[in-house]
């Protein structure tokens, strides 16, 4: 009796689990279910989905959202049997990697011609089209600065001043895409030799290299650190929530990255996927991106989200995306050798 009841329980449990997975779900529903992988911010998921579905009532978006690193790793791991139909909102460098692995279905969306050239892959047909650009800015906590009588920096060079010892956080480029674009930005602006020399000096003032691009501005916003180098939008939203921070665009210029849209090769919903790519490059969609980002793909959209640094776009470094991809391993190895290997716990 004991055994049969345990067996029965196993079978029942298995059945429950299978039932819970949605086999009885919307398989026969009328709508095309489009699986969309993304790294856009959580608060954007609902508005983006609603806006697209309002224009395309026969298609339903099912999001898979996580941080850039997790989504990129997941997509590469799924390469032999892709589960995503479309990528809507992931770093251009990740999509570049996918394209080189043959994972992207080339398609030039209906509205691509209207976009700034920088926001296109440049291939024909396009492998991806851009949505918005984000910057690695400096988030500076004014309340803590007042307490410690610290001056507000205006340039990267300022950050090497001794008064900022152990008061800066930035993302570790080996863990975070934002970290890498920050470092690559410095190497682009200053050149390799001067760039490494700058980072040597900066290292003396860095309290910690964090594992995410959002974390530095969050830590600065919460006064955990005086300043953080990181993802601009996170800084802006923290400021809107009441954090005493200023977003500074250093005068030398800064590194940046784009969020882009691409179609996965092998998607079973190619027509619907193309509709989403068309929508993503439309003026309407760009206006929506403009609510969150200062820099968007369509040049006619002129919107400035709350608390965003106004002069970001013209300070963007001339980044060579291909150079960045090709030299990534070398730069990370050098960076790790210089700054990551000797990171014993240091007393603050």
């Amino acid at each position, binding site marked *: *009796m*004991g*055994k*049969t*009841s*345990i067996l029965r329980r*196993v079978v029942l*449990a298995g059945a*429950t*689990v*299978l039932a*819970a*997975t*949605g086999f009885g779900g919307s398989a026969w529903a009328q709508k095309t279910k489009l*699986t969309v992988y993304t790294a856009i911010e*959580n608060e954007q*998921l*609902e508005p983006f989905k609603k806006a697209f579905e309002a224009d395309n009532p026969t298609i339903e978006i*099912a999001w898979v*959202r*996580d*941080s850039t*690193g*997790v989504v990129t*790793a*997941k997509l*590469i*791991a799924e390469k*032999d*049997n892709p*589960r995503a139909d479309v990528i809507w909102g992931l770093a251009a460098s990740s999509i570049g990697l996918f394209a080189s692995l043959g994972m992207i279905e080339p398609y030039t969306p209906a509205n691509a011609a209207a976009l700034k050239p920088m926001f296109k892959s440049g291939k024909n047909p396009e492998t991806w089209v851009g949505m918005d650009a984000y910057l690695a800015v400096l988030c500076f906590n004014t*309340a803590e600065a007042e307490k410690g009588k610290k001056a507000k920096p205006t340039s990267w060079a300022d950050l090497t001043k001794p008064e900022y010892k152990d008061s800066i956080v930035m993302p570790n480029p*080996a*863990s*975070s*895409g934002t970290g890498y674009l920050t470092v690559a930005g410095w190497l682009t602006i200053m050149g390799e030799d001067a760039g490494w020399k700058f980072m040597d000096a900066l290292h003396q003032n860095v309290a910690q*290299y964090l*594992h*995410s691009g*959002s*974390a530095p501005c*969050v830590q600065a916003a*919460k*006064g*955990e*650190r005086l300043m953080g180098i990181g993802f601009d939008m*996170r800084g802006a939203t923290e400021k809107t929530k*009441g*954090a005493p921070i200023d977003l500074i665009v250093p005068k030398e210029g800064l590194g940046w990255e784009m969020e882009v849209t691409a179609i996965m090769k092998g998607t079973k919903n190619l027509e619907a996927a193309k509709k989403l790519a068309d929508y993503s490059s439309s003026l309407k969609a760009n206006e929506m991106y403009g609510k969150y980002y200062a820099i968007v793909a369509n040049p006619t959209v002129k919107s400035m989200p709350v608390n965003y640094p106004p002069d970001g776009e013209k300070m963007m470094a001339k980044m060579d995306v291909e150079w960045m991809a090709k030299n*990534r391993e070398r730069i990370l190895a050098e960076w*790790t050798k210089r700054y*990551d*290997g*000797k*990171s*014993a*716990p*240091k*007393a*603050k």
Partner: protein
Amino acid sequence: MSLAAPTSKIALRISLSRDDLLMRVGLVALVGVLLLIVALPLWALLAKGFEDRDGHYVGLANYISYFSTPALFNSALNSFHVAAVCTAIVVPAAFMYAYALTRTVLPGKWLFQGISLIPIFAPSLLPGLALVYLFGNQGFFKGLIGGSIYGFDGIVIAQVFYCFPHATMIMVTALATADARLYEAADALGASKIRVFFTVTLPGAKYGLISAALVVFTLVITDFGIAKVIGGNFNVLATDVYKQVIGQQNFSMGAVVGMVLLAPAALAFLVDRLVQRKQVALLTARAVPLIPKPKFGRDLFFTAFCTLVSAGILAILGMAAWGSLIKYWPYNLSLTLANYEFANFDANGWESYFNSLRMAAGTAIVGTALMFVGAWLNEKTRGFGVIRGIVQLLAFLPMAVPGIVLGLGYIFFFNAPNNPLNFLYATMAILVINTVAHFYTVGHLTATTALKQIDPEFESVSASLKVPIWKTFGRVTAPICLPAILDIAIYLFVNAMTTVSSVIFLYAPDTKLASVAAVNIEEAGTTAAAAALCLVIVVTSAAVKALHLLADRFLLGRLQAWRRR
């Protein structure tokens, strides 16, 4: 006599061999299941350690380049250092706490027992967040510690909090089953208290002590969540895996570090084998359970000790609870319930919480059945040593595997186009299977420990009465082990509620979990909402545990009455 003996022997062998055959078939099936859910997915990723990024075989090239990087050696040293320190703190503390719970007369014992479990109900994010609130650069007590909380100190404090219940649970099991006759004999022979402790108590708990040390050591080595939030620049092997896999999508190097991380598990396996060989059943059919008698000095000391430990645990939990109500730390400390409106921070809102409940329930049911029946087959099958060794090894593996490695391995294995099981991918079922596999080790160990304490006489008697072995299982073994079975189910449930690192790769649009949502919310900067979601998870698991204790009392009362004199 000389005539009768051979016939009875033959008869016995025939009646036994049907049971033996049944159990051996079961054991082979178990090996098959474990291969499918543990070994093959793991190999699907670890094999990449021998390939370059384009998938060409490169032999040991990745290993050579990794071992020639000084940063690795540093991380490995750091990992071992932090794990050794945590083990040295947690195991003695857990031993004393468990000793207090089982061998002394403690006022409010149930309360102390409950508090000691709290950390296991919390996602590993929680101690990290609480420590930042307490000792961070804006923390309430930052003056108390002489430096920065970010780094070695922070990891040790958070890990001690996180590992304490694991070690305590094992030590309670080990100390709960003592034979009072040994103590009576020692007493009658006039042995001193210290002598009794070193010759009776400690040897009896030896297996538990070693298990607890191994579990704590490997938990610390493989955990990434704490190192990420509070680790500062203190690199450990688990953060190295993260950098390679998430930061650089370099699965080959991630696989190499993952392989290095398996070393402690291999060691644990060897030690366990050596110790088990010497382990004998404590609870023989004639054993008399030990019931502690009041003793003022000893009881006072242990009450003070348990109060101190409990206060530490409650301080961390309380800080997280307070933090979850704060409007904007540290500049606006007014209180609000807005942080519990999860839909404002995560598109799935409360839905992910209900997904977690479903996943945890599925894991508890499926996992407990598999682990207990599996451990029983492994313990009670006679002969078949090689296969039993394989089961033991496969059961030990998951403990040492970082979740990131297991999760990615699941993608490679279960999403392969030629895998007939790939219909499971992106379903709730894969999350359940993955979680059962991830937490297999402790469930298996608990079941094994419980089964070892049953005198094999029960089986021998049943066999000589020609009762089929599965009837003995259903009527004797399983009921005797019911407390352990419930323990395993609860253990799986609470871990399924908090697990992140592996399932983060496996959830689908409609199966996002609360623990993953908490990490996402924390990453987006809304620390208070992340703390709030962690607390909802803690409260849920605590409620389930409270139900368990009630059920335990009822069931123990009916089924375990024989344990009492």
